[in-house]
């Protein structure tokens, strides 16, 4: 029953939400309103529990077993408490805002900006025109990189128009094909979830 009942729930609610779309009756609309505005929104918020558990299990284990770098794990957990208490004590006041604007924002922004350096290094070391297809990829990338910045227009007036054509015609056609393929796959997966064929989202026993 522990395995069957969740599958029955998934089928029931999935099928109900699917056919609801095609039934314009007020009762159907009321059912949709309650499910979306109450049930989905409330249940979704509890999913953050998984992130919490994952974070604390990892770092508490590191600190308990004094694994390499456990001091940093302790710093991470203290940071969580510090931020939480700052928000609760100041009721999300200016100090809390400053912690976000001058600590979280610069840290996250800088970490992601490291990618610029690594993509430059990868461009030099790894991007090789080994065959016709790779050459086509690199040539297109080069044209797009020049055409999408002001220097492209400065070098040749027709460059921006060429890049727009590449983006709106051949590139768009292939992206559309990929999108349709992904869409069909997503619909198939949704059907499998409703029918109980796909169960990986429930985890193991």
């Amino acid at each position: 029953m522990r395995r069957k009942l969740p599958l029955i729930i998934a089928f029931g609610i999935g099928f109900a939400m699917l056919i609801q779309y095609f039934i314009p009756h007020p009762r159907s609309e009321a059912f949709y309103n309650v499910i979306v505005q109450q049930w989905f929104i409330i249940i979704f918020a509890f999913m953050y529990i998984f992130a919490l558990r994952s974070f604390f299990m990892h770092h508490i284990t590191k600190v308990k077993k004094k694994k390499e770098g456990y001091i940093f794990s302790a710093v991470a957990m203290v940071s969580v408490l510090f931020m939480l208490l700052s928000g609760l004590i100041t009721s999300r006041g200016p100090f809390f805002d400053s912690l976000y604007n001058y600590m979280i924002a610069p840290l996250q922004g800088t970490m992601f900006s490291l990618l610029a350096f690594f993509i430059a290094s990868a461009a030099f070391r790894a991007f090789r025109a080994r065959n016709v297809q790779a050459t086509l990829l690199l040539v297109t990338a080069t044209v797009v990189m020049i055409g999408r910045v002001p220097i492209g227009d400065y070098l040749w007036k027709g460059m921006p128009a060429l890049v727009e054509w590449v983006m709106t015609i051949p590139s768009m056609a292939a992206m559309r094909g990929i999108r349709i393929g992904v869409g069909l796959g997503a619909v198939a997966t949704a059907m499998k979830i409703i029918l109980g064929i796909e169960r990986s989202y429930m985890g193991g026993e």
Partner: protein
Amino acid sequence: MGFWQRFLKLDRRWIFLGITVVVIIPLIKPIGLPIKPTKPVIDLFTYIDTLGPESGAVMVVTGFDPSTMPELMPMEQALLRHCLVKGIPVISLGGLYPAYIGMAKMAIDEVTEEFPDKKSGEDYVFLGFIPGVSAVILSIGIDIATTFGNDYYGTPIDSLPMMSSIMNYSDISLVVDVSGTSTPEYWLMYAQERYGVNVGVACTAVSAPAYYAFLQSGQFVGMLGGLKGAAEYEELMTRKGYPTGRRNATIGMDSQSLAHLLIILLIILGNVGYFIVRRGERKQGIIMRKR
């Protein structure tokens, strides 16, 4: 080891230094290359520019966190300025994930400082964050006040003068998702397909290529893609005489140009070196076989 073999083994920290130099120099000494707006940006700009105080609200959704702030914050601020200068009622949605609301607050605080005559609740409304992602998008289509309850500052939405005539998507002319993730697709699926609201997108350069398909089909009314898209929007605002703030996106475009040229040079040199070394190795292989 020959020159090219040594060159291909160049310590990557020299490349890091090169990228840093080409980015910093134009920031200190700008070149001032002109920005030419493209059709997707013009389409979105024109759509908003034709709206006014009586034509329904514009909802600007903050869908990014600090990781994509350099690209998307200039877009969000330009969109908010455009709506405020035109007197369009603007609903700033603090995002579909908790990390986004800080960005929304930063944008709204900075822009509203430039418009001291605009009042929260009368000219603009700043909605907070509610968990649920797609459920929130769907729920806005039913009733905004029931979905959020209060605005970010804790004021009941029912009591806000601007919201007295705005109940759901039928009172909204355009939703613009300023997004660093795939949330624009959710707005298309759940808001546009279900409720028929017009959707525009302001996205990172990573997402832009995939969204041209939705642009061509007419599902998006317009698109700002990457820092260049933000710079183009700032250019259009300048041409119309609207306030543009510091034009951070435009300032960055000179650095962008030089950095791209450096990366292209690295790709070319890497490939030249690769082919020369490979040819040399093949020749050595022939000489070894002959011996």
